[in-house]
């Protein structure tokens, strides 16, 4: 409710501003429109805008670090106001969670989870929070970070940037280069960067010279010791490449700028507070102070481009220059012109981060859909038309870039040459400076000696005077007592002593005079030394001017090279995209063709299989023919065997009968005319004749059987021949099937390969759509965002909020006047946010321990490990938070009897969108059978959505 009121106020306010500014607005397009105009030139695909739900979750996470409540999501989605996105953005900026979230993002950027050694986390975060709440401009914030010395309690938190890096010069050089200038110069410490042409060793040492005089100093005050940032007077840094061994010197320089103009200071003039025990020295000229001023005055392009690129990356998930600490000629911005526009606009906005982020949030570029653009054919036609002209343009641009690269190289050599000429003179300056220091030291010594000598004279003279007075007095006393020998003796002794002492004075006077002479001589020497110093400085000055001029020329050449290479990269990128896109129809055609071939092969395969199948019964018949013929043959053989056996028996009978007949004849011969024998013989002969007949018949039977067998055997041979022929035919058809199958496999492999290539193309294009901001990036939630998002969607945040509201209503009830006072309401919201934060902040560390990158490493790289998943699945906290509590989504779903509405609540509450029909069905199907343990089933659903990729990422 309070937010609503606030929103309305904002709209009125906004309208007021718009009417006031309308003439100006008409003249110059807003920054978010200029962003879209500029990106439209770069992008190949016309831009689309994401859905309300997508925008709501994205912008809420990006500006407040947590998604909206289910109610707020529903209200936004139902709001018919066409300008509701702008209203939402302004409401989010006005909410107290904006400052909290932005402070956390700055913390990650500035400290990268380094340990709190000198400044406690609470103090640091409170300082950052206060800075964001006050909308402190970025340049002011950085100036405070770089110049704070940690002495004053009020500004000590700002000194954390330096102190918790141990004020280590190399570490600071690296991190200042990365974080404030977008240049990781680490690899240029010992030589020019091996891979990046425009990261010179001189750049590293120039920046190092800004910071190397600073040091941590422990100052004891009573019982406590506090480490502060002290700074010595700086001198030029000498360095040489470990490879080339060429001597160089540099004074302090900022990236992309010439060396500072440092005042020439003589020894003794270089400290405001000279170094001493337990005293923080203060140099007359603070390089760190100067670094801070020069970096933040709006004139350093590297500084300006770095921060707009980092803020862009915060919102878009990826910088225009990516990675964000890798600005150099060979890694230009996706659109260098846009980066320039943003940097200049940010300076004009007076480094106002909130106003700048607002412009980013309102741009269409920020509102790109998560779904990737469709790869339409019309796109390809348009793209292929651009390939030729772009290729031609690229050739020309490459030639130009190559020239400017050479020009940079020779400008660098010229700069080094100018430096080499000056080196001996610089050495003379060093010597002259050392001589001045030596002479000054001598003079000091001489002065001290003179003082001692003069003191000696004085002391002695005083003693002599005292003694003279004593002698005088004694002599007067002796005059009164002339007879007293002891008095006379004493006077004599006193007199002697007085005279002796008086005699000692002149040598001392002489010594003092000598000392004076030494002082005079030393003064002259010092004056001469100073004169020599001035002379050498004068001699060095033009050489130094020449170096500066050469350096300036080098910078110009470097800028030119960066611009030219950037132009090449831009065209190259567009050309590559155009080529990829124009390849789409070719690939699609090839897939179509391959699919056609595969289809034919498949048909062939089917046909050949059918032909094979068709032939199977023929082959089977031939097989059974052979079997039948073989069986017939067997039978014929058996028959013949039987006939032969019978025939043999018959022949045997004939033999037996004829033998018996012969025996009967012999008997008859012996007993001629025996009737019986005659009869027997006759019968036997008859029988023999019968048997002969039977044998003849048997022979005929055997012959018949033999013939039948031969016929059967022929039939077998015939059948076998037929089978062999059928087998050949079958084999041919099988081979045809196998070939068709192999052809099909090949054709399918080709089609798959084409599909894979097409899919690779899509992957490449997708990366390009994301890289040139045609589609939205996918941004992993930071551990902080995860923690607060989990608290938001599980209702933990709201429960604590409600408790604090009740508490404040009781302890500090607002008056009626206050209730209608927007300023009071805003303060109350801020108080509430702080109270809830204080209660819950202990949990942030838990998420950091699992999801945070290591201290001192970039925090934006995503990683997923099993221990994170184990924490989310089995850890106590998450499982308890997804349980029913208060009026959270789990509790509401348990109580909701309409399961479709429960599904809506789940998706709105956790993912800030309504479920699709399929998703609603899934929830209903999950819950319907679970009437017995609905609470458990709801918890399963909430846990599952909370652990989905869609929740883990901002997209």
């Amino acid at each position, binding site marked *: 409710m309070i937010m609503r009121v606030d929103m309305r106020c904002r709209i009125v306010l906004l309208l007021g501003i718009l009417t006031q500014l309308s003439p100006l607005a008409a003249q110059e397009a807003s920054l978010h429109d200029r962003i879209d105009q500029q990106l439209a030139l770069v992008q190949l695909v016309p831009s689309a805008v994401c859905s309300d739900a997508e925008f709501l979750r994205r912008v809420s996470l990006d500006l407040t670090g947590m998604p909206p409540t289910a109610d707020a999501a529903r209200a936004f989605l139902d709001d018919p106001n066409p300008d509701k996105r702008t209203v939402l953005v302004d409401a989010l900026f006005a909410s107290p969670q904006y400052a909290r979230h932005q402070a956390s993002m700055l913390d990650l950027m500035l400290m990268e989870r380094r340990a709190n050694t000198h400044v406690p986390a609470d103090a640091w975060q409170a300082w950052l929070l206060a800075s964001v709440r006050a909308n402190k401009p970025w340049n002011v914030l950085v100036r405070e970070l770089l110049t704070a010395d940690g002495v004053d309690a009020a500004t000590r938190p700002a000194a954390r940037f330096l102190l918790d890096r141990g004020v280590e010069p190399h570490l600071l050089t690296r991190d200042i280069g990365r974080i404030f200038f977008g240049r990781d110069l680490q690899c240029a410490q010992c030589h020019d960067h*091996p891979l990046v042409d425009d990261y010179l060793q001189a750049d590293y040492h120039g920046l190092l010279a800004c910071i190397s005089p600073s040091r941590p100093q422990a100052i004891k005050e009573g019982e406590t010791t506090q480490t502060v940032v002290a700074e010595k007077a700086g001198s030029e840094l000498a360095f040489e490449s470990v490879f080339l061994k060429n001597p160089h010197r540099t004074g302090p320089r900022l990236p992309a700028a010439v060396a500072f103009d440092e005042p020439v200071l003589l020894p003794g003039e270089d400290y405001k507070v000279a170094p001493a025990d337990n005293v923080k020295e203060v140099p007359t000229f603070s390089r760190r102070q100067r670094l801070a001023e020069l970096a933040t005055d709006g004139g350093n392009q590297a500084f300006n481009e770095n921060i707009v690129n980092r803020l862009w990356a915060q919102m878009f998930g990826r910088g225009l220059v990516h990675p964000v600490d890798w600005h150099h000629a060979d890694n230009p911005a996706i659109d260098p012109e846009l980066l320039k526009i943003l940097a200049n606009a940010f300076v004009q906005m007076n480094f106002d981060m909130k106003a700048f982020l607002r412009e980013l949030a309102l741009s269409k570029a920020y509102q790109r859909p998560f779904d990737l653009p469709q790869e339409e054919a019309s796109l390809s036609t348009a793209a292929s038309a651009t390939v030729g002209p772009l290729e031609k343009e690229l050739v020309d641009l490459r030639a130009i870039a190559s020239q400017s690269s050479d020009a940079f190289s020779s400008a660098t050599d010229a700069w080094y040459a100018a430096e080499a000429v000056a080196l001996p003179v610089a050495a003379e300056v060093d010597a002259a400076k050392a001589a001045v220091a030596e002479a000054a030291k001598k003079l000091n010594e001489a002065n001290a000696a003179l003082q001692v000598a003069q003191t000696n004279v004085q002391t002695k003279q005083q003693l002599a005077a005292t003694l003279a007075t004593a002698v005088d007095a004694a002599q007067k006393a002796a005059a009164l007592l002339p007879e007293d020998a002891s008095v006379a003796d004493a006077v004599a002794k006193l007199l002697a002593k007085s005279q002796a002492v008086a005699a000692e004075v002149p040598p001392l006077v002489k010594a003092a005079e000598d000392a004076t002479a030494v002082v005079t001589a030393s003064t002259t020497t010092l004056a001469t030394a100073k004169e020599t110093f001035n002379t050498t400085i004068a001699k060095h000055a033009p050489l130094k001017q020449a170096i500066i001029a050469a350096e300036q020329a080098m910078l110009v050449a470097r800028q030119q090279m960066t611009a030219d290479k950037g132009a090449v990269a831009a065209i190259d990128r567009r050309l590559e995209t155009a080529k990829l896109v124009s390849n789409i129809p070719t690939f699609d055609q090839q897939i179509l063709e391959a699919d056609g071939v595969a289809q034919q092969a498949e048909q062939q395969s089917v046909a050949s299989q059918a032909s094979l199948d068709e032939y199977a019964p023929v082959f089977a018949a031939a097989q059974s023919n052979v079997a039948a013929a073989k069986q017939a043959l067997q039978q014929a053989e058996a028959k013949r065997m039987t006939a032969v056996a019978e025939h043999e028996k018959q022949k045997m009978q004939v033999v037996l009968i004829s033998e018996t007949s012969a025996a009967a004849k012999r008997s008859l011969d012996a007993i001629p005319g025996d009737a019986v024998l005659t009869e027997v013989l006759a019968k036997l002969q008859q029988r023999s004749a019968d048997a002969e007949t039977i044998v003849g018949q048997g022979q005929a039977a055997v012959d018949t059987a033999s013939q039948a067998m031969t016929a059967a055997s022929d039939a077998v041979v015939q059948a076998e021949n037929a089978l062999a022929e059928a087998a050949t035919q079958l084999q041919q058809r099988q081979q045809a099937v196998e070939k068709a199958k192999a052809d099909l496999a090949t054709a399918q492999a080709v089609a798959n390969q084409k599909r894979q290539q097409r899919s690779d193309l899509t992957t490449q294009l997708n990366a390009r759509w994301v890289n040139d901001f045609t589609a939205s990036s996918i941004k992993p939630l930071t551990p902080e965002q995860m923690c607060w998002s989990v608290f938001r969607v599980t209702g933990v945040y709201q429960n604590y909020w409600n408790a604090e509201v009740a508490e404040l209503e009781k302890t500090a009830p607002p008056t009626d006047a206050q209730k209608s006072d927007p300023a009071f309401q805003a303060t109350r919201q801020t108080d509430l946010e702080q109270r809830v934060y204080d209660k819950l902040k202990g949990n942030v560390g838990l998420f950091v*321990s699992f999801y945070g990158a290591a201290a001192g490493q970039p925090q934006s790289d995503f990683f997923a490990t099993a221990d994170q998943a184990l924490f989310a699945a089995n850890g106590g906290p998450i499982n308890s938070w997804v349980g029913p509590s208060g009026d959270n989504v789990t509790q509401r779903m348990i109580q909701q009897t309409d399961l479709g509405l429960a599904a809506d609540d789940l998706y709105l509450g956790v993912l800030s969108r309504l479920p699709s029909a399929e998703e609603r069905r899934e929830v209903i199907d999950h819950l319907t059978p679970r009437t017995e343990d609905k609470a458990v089933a709801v918890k399963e659903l909430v846990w599952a959505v909370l652990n989905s990729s869609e929740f883990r990422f901002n997209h």
Partner: protein
Amino acid sequence: MRATYACRSAEHRLARRQFLGTVSVAGGLAASGLDVFSTTSVAQQLQSQQKRIVVFNMHGGLSQLESWDPKPGTDTGGPFRAIPTSVPGIHVSELLPQTAKQMHHLCLVRGVNTAEDDHGKGIYMMLTGRRQTPAADYPQIGAVAAKTLTPEESALPGHILITPGGSGGRGNDSAYLGPKYSSIYLGNGNPPQNTTLPDSITAASDTARHEVRRRINDRFLNRRRTAVTEAFTYSYEQALQLMRQRDVFDVAKNLKRIMIGTASMTSVVIVCWRDVCWNKESPSFSSPIRTTTRITRTSTFILNNLASSISHSLVLLKIWPREACWKAR
């Protein structure tokens, strides 16, 4: 004038790849120290062989004179004698009698020499191979091994650090390789944290919620497939696998495995750590006799129990500033 650095030259690059035994087409990858391992063929080859490295980091407390590099008869040599080993010509301290018998499996490095006299910096050097510098951090050997040797689909973490005490968590030792390769602490050799289902969740409920989660993810991945979403969804499957393999860390089961000869490297190392070597107290500043007894017991235990799986393993026994490594049998 720009320098042509030797380390970028084509000859140099080629020679190094040949040295590593890979066939590679020239050009392409930039060559910084560890990039060679990212050549797919090398990494795949190493992974397919399941190479492992065990590091026993025993910083401080034990002198080289009482271990690998005795100097008997000298003023500083101490009271112990040197004994011959299974390798003719190599003598070690008499406090390592069992290790001496295994010396033919060992490669003794006596040439390590540094100007560091600070333990912290010495450890850093031993574990990263680099001098500690303020503005740059380097990964420890375990993180490098995890990146180069662990198969992508491995359920068990690629980098395990067993610490005396402590309750688990993730180390900060992988520098620019990213937290994915940081060590998982096993305090006292106990299993990683959160590897059991809480009592409030039944197995059936766990299965049900993971199924819903997978379906939601599939729908999201259908809209756009990216490496980060794939990695995120896969981490949950990895977690489930790790839960199923949890008894890899069970000491009793590991002892049984060792007895029947099926122990994995991890089992042996955990048991070795838990029950043989350093369970009771930190090795630092105990007497040389006790420490060397542990070393000799460790070495024999490992060599005797890893008959099968040690063949692709490298065991580094680091006693700064002397170190020994056991190599593949």
